[in-house]
């Protein structure tokens, strides 16, 4: 799965808003999501399609309804790939600093 698609999907305020809406209440129908957005049903469908292609949203059928769920797994993958390594570096800098300071003290 391509992380390009995740970043592209996130580079749009409407799609981030959709993720926020699903975060507040998971498993919503298209109709329900449209109530909170000032745009046509068609546009919302397109945005949801891009989010689904990036695997940030998954859908399941429950009876006659299609429900949308936020899928944070690709975000976790992005975190592991892009954020954790900077954190690790910062932590090791702090660690070096501590060693240095403690050495000076003794």
């Amino acid at each position, binding site marked *: 799965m391509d992380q390009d698609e995740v970043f592209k999907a996130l580079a749009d305020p409407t799609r981030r808003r959709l993720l926020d809406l699903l975060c507040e209440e*998971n498993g919503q129908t298209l109709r329900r999501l449209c109530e909170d957005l000032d745009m046509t049903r068609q546009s919302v469908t397109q945005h949801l399609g891009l989010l689904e292609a990036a695997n940030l949203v998954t859908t*399941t059928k429950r009876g006659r309804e299609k429900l949308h769920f936020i*899928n944070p*797994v690709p975000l976790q*993958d992005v975190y*592991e790939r892009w954020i954790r390594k900077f954190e690790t570096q910062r932590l090791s800098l702090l660690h070096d600093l501590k060693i240095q300071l403690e050495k000076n003290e003794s």
Partner: protein
Amino acid sequence: MTAERTSFVYVSYIASTPEKVFEAITRPEITRRYWGHENVSDWTPGARWQHVRDDDARSVDLVGKVVEVTPPNRLVITWTGASQEAEPDSYSRVTFEIEPDAYGVRLCVTHDDLIVGSQMEAGVSKGWPLVLSSLKSCLETGKGFDLSGRAKAA
């Protein structure tokens, strides 16, 4: 009054085979490597399963029953905190669906019947993305994340 229930659906695409993903969920020596816990059961319908923390205390954190087993494509289990084993209302249900995909494997984890506002809801909604990301990393690179809560060596 019955409590309101909610569901989560998580999907991860993993460069692996359905057999390896199924094993990674059901074999304790593999779950330990990316989940910080061992999933222990004989994986027959009706059997009990336990989620045992991989530390010195080996505390049982979660328990449940095996509902359905169809290796390597499907596993359904019930799920509750070990201290709530005797409370039928506390149980939620987890379905693992493993399908071959152009990329390798599509793993879909559906967690149903979670009580809205419960500690379990909060815990699993934080936990699953981490566990699935760690599983993917473990199968693709051989290294999962350390989720055991063990103190790190300095």
